[in-house]
């Protein structure tokens, strides 16, 4: 497990390198240190032997053996000297600091004689280095350094009274001084121990630092990536890495997130297709069977409705039957629309015109909900090849959704403050005055779901007559010059690409938070998208934003913005945020239509801020 860890491997590699480097360095260091220590000892020994030689020279000339003995013994008693010996030519120890040695014969092959006697004829002159030797006499004794100092024949020797040496002799004997290397060896060992301690502490600190750095910069992000990959492989495509880095791993994490996004999108699309296909088959069958009986119920009940004018109670009941049947029919119709997935009858069309027509269709509904529609359309949009009716249906669906999202709390307001300047209290008035109204409204209440919607619409309509709404449907074309700088900033616009930009980010003048906002513009193609798109921005966030600003608390309003958990199911059939009021088919149908146009429809939503639907339609469809 540890061996498979990239951090461990890296740390191990670094530590190994450092270990080798320090080892080599320490080795050379100790080598040179011991060399210099030894040469110091050597010099000391040579000086000593010279001193002994000159000290005993006079006595030797006088052949005063007792005195020579005495001085050698005295000198040899010093701690720093192992022993001092003088050999004569034949190898007999004549003097020694150790009494027992005297008179012993030394073989010419022993360590002290070997230097000169190794080559058949004994050498007479030796260099300094060759005169010294290091040896260990026994297994437990310390190392010794021995230095031999030849005693050459001198005229005074053969002219002396004793006449002990003939003139022909060159070397009369050898002075051998041995010095224990205990001190030197201890020093070397200390250096070795110091080097080892240094190496280990460096390794420890280095591996700690490298390990931490590797863990922090490499190991952790890699582990996170690994966990993310496993999680994604396990099917959790919502997994996101939090990226706080700007290095390669950060980029990797970013592109990982990007990839998962794409994957999630692709899966959603695939899932949608599957779901659409199977649901389509089922729905078509069921809807067909239900459709005819529903029509019969409707024809009979509406006939009865017409005949029941005189009896108000029956008339009212019949009205409920009719309206509920109509609702059923509408659901069935949507289901069939969705299931049938008609092949679009594509023709060249102007998107802005389609948007305008869609807006016109829902004009009344918007006015009823007092939702203002602000349109900012790029007049330079290229024409697209689409089924105008189907695309119009998409826009109507999106706009109705948006209006519903805004309209809900408006309706609630109306219900609670009948007659008290209801229109003026709403929307901008709330925002102007701020706190009290905003705080009082709180969570927009959903009208009683058990009642059909028109029960709410009716008093509203009445109130509208009494107090004309402050906002009204307003459709305006954006002036051309507004887009010119924008386009320059965003780069060269590719002709034939569409975008309805988000009003929230590029605030339009006079757009209030409760307004429905629509924009079309040329969009630069992005990677992975069919060329370009159309953006439809939906804002229903006014009160929420205000509340958040005023109270500083999180916004709990689910009327504006869609909770993240619902977004993946948004385009699924029968997914609705409107409760029983919605069939949950509008977005599914829209999705099907856009899909049939080889386009894409996506949603960006933030609870408390608002929702933006982006419709992208390829230009060469």
């Amino acid at each position, binding site marked *: 497990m540890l061996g498979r860890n990239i951090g461990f491997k890296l740390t191990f590699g670094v530590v190994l390198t450092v270990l080798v480097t320090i080892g080599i360095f320490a080795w050379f260091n100790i080598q040179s240190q011991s060399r210099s220590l030894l040469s110091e000892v050597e010099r000391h020994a040579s000086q000593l032997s010279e001193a002994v030689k000159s000290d005993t020279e006079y006595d030797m000339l006088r052949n005063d053996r007792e005195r020579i003995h005495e001085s050698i013994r005295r000198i040899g008693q010093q701690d720093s000297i192992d022993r001092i010996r003088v050999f004569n030519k034949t190898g007999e120890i004549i003097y020694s600091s150790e009494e027992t040695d005297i008179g012993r014969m030394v073989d010419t092959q022993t360590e002290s004689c070997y230097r000169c006697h190794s080559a058949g004829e004994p050498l007479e002159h030796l260099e300094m280095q060759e005169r010294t030797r290091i040896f260990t006499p026994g297994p437990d004794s310390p190392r010794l350094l021995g230095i031999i100092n030849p005693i050459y024949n001198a005229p005074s020797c053969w002219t002396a009274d004793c006449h002990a040496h003939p003139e022909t002799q060159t070397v009369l004997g050898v002075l051998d001084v041995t010095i224990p290397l205990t001190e030197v060896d201890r020093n070397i060992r200390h250096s070795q121990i110091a080097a080892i301690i240094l190496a280990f502490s460096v390794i420890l600190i280095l591996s700690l630092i490298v390990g931490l750095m590797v863990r922090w910069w490499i190991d952790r992000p890699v582990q996170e990536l690994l966990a993310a990959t496993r999680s994604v492989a396990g099917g959790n495509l919502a997994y996101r890495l939090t990226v706080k880095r700007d290095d390669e791993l950060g980029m990797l994490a970013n592109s990982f997130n990007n990839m998962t996004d794409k994957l999630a999108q692709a899966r959603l699309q695939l899932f949608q297709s599957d779901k659409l296909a199977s649901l389509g088959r089922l729905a078509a069958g069921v*809807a*067909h069977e239900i*459709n*005819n009986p529903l*029509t*019969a119920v*409707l*024809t*009979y009940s*509406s*006939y009865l409705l017409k005949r029941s004018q005189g009896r108000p109670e029956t008339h009212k009941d019949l*009205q*409920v039957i*009719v*309206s*509920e049947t*109509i*609702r059923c029919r*509408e659901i069935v*119709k949507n289901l*069939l629309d969705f299931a049938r997935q008609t092949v679009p009858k594509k023709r060249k069309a102007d998107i802005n*015109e389609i948007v305008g*027509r869609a807006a016109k*269709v*829902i004009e*009344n*509904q918007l006015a*009823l909900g007092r939702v203002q529609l602000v349109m900012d359309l790029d007049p330079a949009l290229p024409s697209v090849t689409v089924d105008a009716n189907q695309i119009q249906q998409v826009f109507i669906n999106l706009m*109705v959704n948006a209006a519903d999202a805004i309209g809900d709390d408006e309706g609630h307001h109306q219900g609670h403050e009948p007659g008290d300047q209801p229109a003026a209290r709403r929307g901008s008035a709330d925002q102007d005055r701020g706190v009290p109204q905003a705080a009082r409204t709180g969570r927009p209440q959903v009208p009683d779901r058990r009642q*059909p*919607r*028109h029960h709410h*619409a009716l008093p509203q309509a009445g109130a509208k007559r009494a107090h004309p709404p402050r906002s009204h449907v307003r459709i305006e074309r954006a002036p051309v010059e507004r887009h010119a700088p924008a386009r320059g900033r965003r780069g060269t616009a590719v002709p034939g690409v569409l975008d309805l930009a988000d009003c929230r980010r590029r605030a339009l003048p006079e757009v209030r938070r409760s307004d429905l906002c629509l924009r079309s513009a040329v969009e630069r193609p992005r990677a992975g998208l069919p060329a370009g798109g159309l953006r439809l921005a939906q804002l229903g966030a006014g009160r929420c934003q205000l509340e958040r600003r005023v109270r500083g608390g999180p916004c709990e309003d689910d009327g504006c913005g869609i909770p993240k958990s619902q977004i993946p199911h948004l385009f699924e059939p029968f997914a609705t945020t409107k409760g029983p009021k919605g069939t949950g088919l509008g977005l599914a149908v829209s999705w099907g239509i856009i899909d049939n146009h080889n386009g894409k429809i996506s949603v960006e939503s933030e609870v408390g801020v608002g929702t933006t639907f982006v419709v992208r339609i390829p230009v060469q469809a």
Partner: protein
Amino acid sequence: MTVVAADSAAEALRLLKESRFRLALCDIMMQGLDGFQFLEELNRSGIQLPVVMMTGYSTVENAVRSLAAGAIDYIPKPFTADELLTVVRRALRSSALLDAADSARLERAGSMSFVPCPDNYLKLGCVSWALMEDEGTARVGVSDLFLKAAEGIREFELEEPGEDLVQGIPCAVATSPDGSRHGIMCPMSGKVLEVNADAQSNPSLVEKDPYFKGWLYRILPSDPESNLQWLSL
């Protein structure tokens, strides 16, 4: 109510852009754009305007083609003033009903101005319907919109069994309570196998249930293939 005349389809389109009209009466044979091109142009520019087609060159094909192209009704020349008035009145009411249905749907109001044909029915314009049956026969009836636009029916005059019906030619005449007579264009050609006696004896049955029990004829279609191209689902 004012009437404005235009010399050509182009002129009419210009006028339409300037002001609103409730109904257009349009010839098929015209200089420049013909009647069908005019309808197409309206459709393309998104102008919602009910159009009644009229022509002296009255072929069956012209009639059904007009309805398929989006005309609300069709009247062959020559016609009497009464006939024209009947058609115009019916067309105005039809378009009002269609508008009401549109707005009701958008406002999700639970009311309904007329009941549209069931999904699998073949429709000739918004006048009549045909339903293919498993035995190769077809049922023929009149749409609820037509009935509502005619403001109720006092009496149906139907053909006898064995007669041949032709698509686009009136196959029944409905008389409103006010006495105006409305020709119901046949959606499909064929020989009459059976006449719905209930509908004839009790016209309110047709009003009550125009798509099921209120059928008018059972026919043996003579040329369903070519008939189908003018019918819409």
